[in-house]
C-alpha cells in the first residue's frame, strides 16, 4: 500500500500528464478519432429474459479483438493491461441487484487477465460498499494472496484523510483507488439517471468518493467533469468495458424492472466522453421507441457531456465526427 507522500507524488505526476489523450496508444489506429467498439450478441438473453452466461466470455473476446486489432485474446489483453501492476476492476453496484455489473462479465475479465500474465494477487474487484457488492451477487474476498473483491468500507482500506478540491466540494477518494490500483478497468452500466440524465463511464468514479451525493447538484454538472479531472481518476481509469448487457431507460439509476431492457452489448473504449455520448444516444433512442419524451424535455438534459468535452477539462470528445464507432 502506498503511503500518503507517494500518493501525493503520484497525483502531482498525474497533473503533468493531464490532457495527454489516449494513453494506450490505440486511438491512433482510428486516425485521431476516439475509438469505441460496440459488440453485440442478440442471443445473450433468451426470450424469457434469462442471461446465457456462457456466451459472455465469447462476446468479451470479440470486443477486445475488435478494439485492439488482435485476434487472439491474450495478445489483445497484453496490449491493454500493464503486467506487473495492480489492476482494479471498478464495478457498478449502486443500482442494486438486477442492474449491476454482471458477475459473469467480471469473472470473464479476471480469467483473461490471469491468462495474460496478471497475478491473482494483482487484481482487485472493487466498489464503494461491501453491502452493495454483496447485494449485486458478489462475494467479499479480502485475502491479498488471491483476487480481492472489496468495498472501500473493508477494514484496512477506507478513504484518504486528505480532501481534494472538486469544484465546490471537498472529496475524499477511496484508498483502493489511490493506494492499491495502478490501472483501473471501468465496468459501468448504462442507465437513465434521475439527476444527470444518464449514468455510464463518467459517473462510475462517483463510487470512489466518500460522499458522492455532494456531487449531485445541477444535474451533476460540472461535478462530473471536476471529479474525472482529478489526476487519480483521469490517469488510472484507463480503459472501459461497459456492461450494456442490460440497461434502464427510465426511473434509474435504481433497478426498475418495468424499464429494463437488454441491449446485449459490451461497449469498449478509452475515451469515456465518447462512450457516454454513445450511451446517452442509445438511451434516448430507447426512450423514443417506448414513447417517452427526451431527457431534455423532462428536465434532465445531459449538460455534463458538454462540460467534460470542453477545453477547460479536455476529458474526451462528444463530437460524433471525432468518434470512430465500430459495431460488431
Amino acid at each position, binding site marked *: 500500500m502506498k503511503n500518503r507522500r507517494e500518493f501525493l507524488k503520484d497525483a502531482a505526476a498525474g497533473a503533468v500528464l493531464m490532457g495527454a489523450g489516449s494513453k494506450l496508444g490505440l486511438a491512433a489506429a482510428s486516425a485521431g478519432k476516439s475509438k469505441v467498439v460496440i459488440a453485440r450478441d442478440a442471443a445473450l438473453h433468451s426470450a*424469457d*429474459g*434469462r442471461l446465457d452466461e456462457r456466451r459472455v466470455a465469447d462476446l468479451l473476446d470479440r470486443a477486445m479483438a475488435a478494439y485492439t486489432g488482435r485476434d487472439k485474446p491474450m495478445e489483445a489483453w497484453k496490449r491493454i493491461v500493464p503486467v506487473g501492476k495492480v489492476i482494479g476492476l471498478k464495478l457498478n453496484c*449502486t443500482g*442494486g*441487484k*438486477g442492474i449491476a455489473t454482471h458477475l459473469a462479465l467480471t469473472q470473464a475479465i479476471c480469467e483473461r487477465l490471469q491468462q495474460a500474465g496478471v497475478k491473482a494477487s494483482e487484481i482487485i474487484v472493487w466498489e*464503494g*460498499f461491501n*453491502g452493495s457488492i454483496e447485494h449485486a451477487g458478489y462475494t467479499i474476498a479480502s485475502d491479498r494472496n488471491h483476487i480481492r473483491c472489496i468495498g472501500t468500507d473493508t477494514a484496512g482500506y477506507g478513504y484518504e484523510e486528505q480532501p481534494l478540491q472538486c469544484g465546490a466540494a471537498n472529496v475524499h477518494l477511496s484508498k483502493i483507488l489511490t493506494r492499491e490500483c495502478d490501472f483501473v478497468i471501468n465496468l459501468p452500466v448504462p442507465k437513465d*439517471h*434521475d*439527476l*444527470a440524465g444518464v*449514468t455510464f463511464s463518467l*459517473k462510475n468514479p*462517483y463510487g470512489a468518493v466518500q*460522499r*458522492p*451525493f455532494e456531487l*449531485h447538484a445541477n444535474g451533476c454538472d460540472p461535478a462530473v467533469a471536476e471529479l474525472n479531472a482529478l489526476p487519480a481518476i483521469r490517469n488510472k481509469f484507463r480503459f472501459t468495458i461497459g456492461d450494456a448487457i442490460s440497461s434502464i431507460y*427510465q*426511473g*434509474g*439509476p*435504481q*433497478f*426498475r*424492472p*418495468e*424499464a429494463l431492457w437488454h441491449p446485449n452489448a459490451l461497449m469498449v473504449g478509452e475515451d469515456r466522453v465518447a462512450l457516454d455520448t454513445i450511451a446517452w444516444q442509445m438511451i434516448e433512442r430507447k426512450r423514443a421507441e*417506448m*414513447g417517452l419524451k427526451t431527457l431534455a424535455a423532462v428536465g434532465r438534459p445531459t449538460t455534463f457531456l458538454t462540460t467534460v468535452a470542453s477545453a477547460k477539462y479536455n476529458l474526451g470528445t462528444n463530437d460524433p465526427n471525432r468518434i470512430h464507432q465500430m459495431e460488431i
Partner: protein
Amino acid sequence: MKFKTESIFAALAIVLLVSVACTGCKKTNADAFPATGAIAGWEKTSETRTFAAKDLWQYIDGDAEQYISAGVVSTSTSDYKYQGQLEATVDVYTMKDAAGARVILEKGQSKDALAVQLGDAGVAYAQSVIFRKGPALVRITAYEAAPNAQAALLELAHGVEAKLQ
C-alpha cells in the same frame, strides 16, 4: 451534590429514551415486514435495514434526492424469496406525510401500470408492485421475470399493507 448530578443524568437519560422511542414509533415502518411463512411461499431472507434520510444515499445513491425532496424520514428494506426461487426486495419509505408518498407513486408511472387495490393507491407491473398507505410508500421489486411473479408480489404486498402503522 452527588444526588443532584445523578438526577440530572437520570432526567437526560429519560428524555433521550423518550426521544428515541418516539422517533422509532412515528418515523419508521421497520416492523412492516412479514416474517417467513406469514405469507404463503414467502421467506424473509435478510435482516431489515433502516436508513435515516441523511444516509439514504448509502442505499440508493443517485435516487435518494427525489425521496428527500418528497419528505422521506426513513427507509427500511429487506430481501425475500418466493418458493425458494424468485428473489425480491421490499422497500418501505416513511414520508413526512401522505402527500410525499403520493408524489413518489405518481412519478414515473408508465403506460403499462396496472392499478391495484392496495392501501390508498397502488400499481403493479410484471415484476414490481408500488403502493402508498398514509405516509408510507412501498416498493416491492422482483429480480427476474416469472409467470407467477405479479400474483406472488401482490400477496406479499397485501401482507406488508396489513402491517403498516
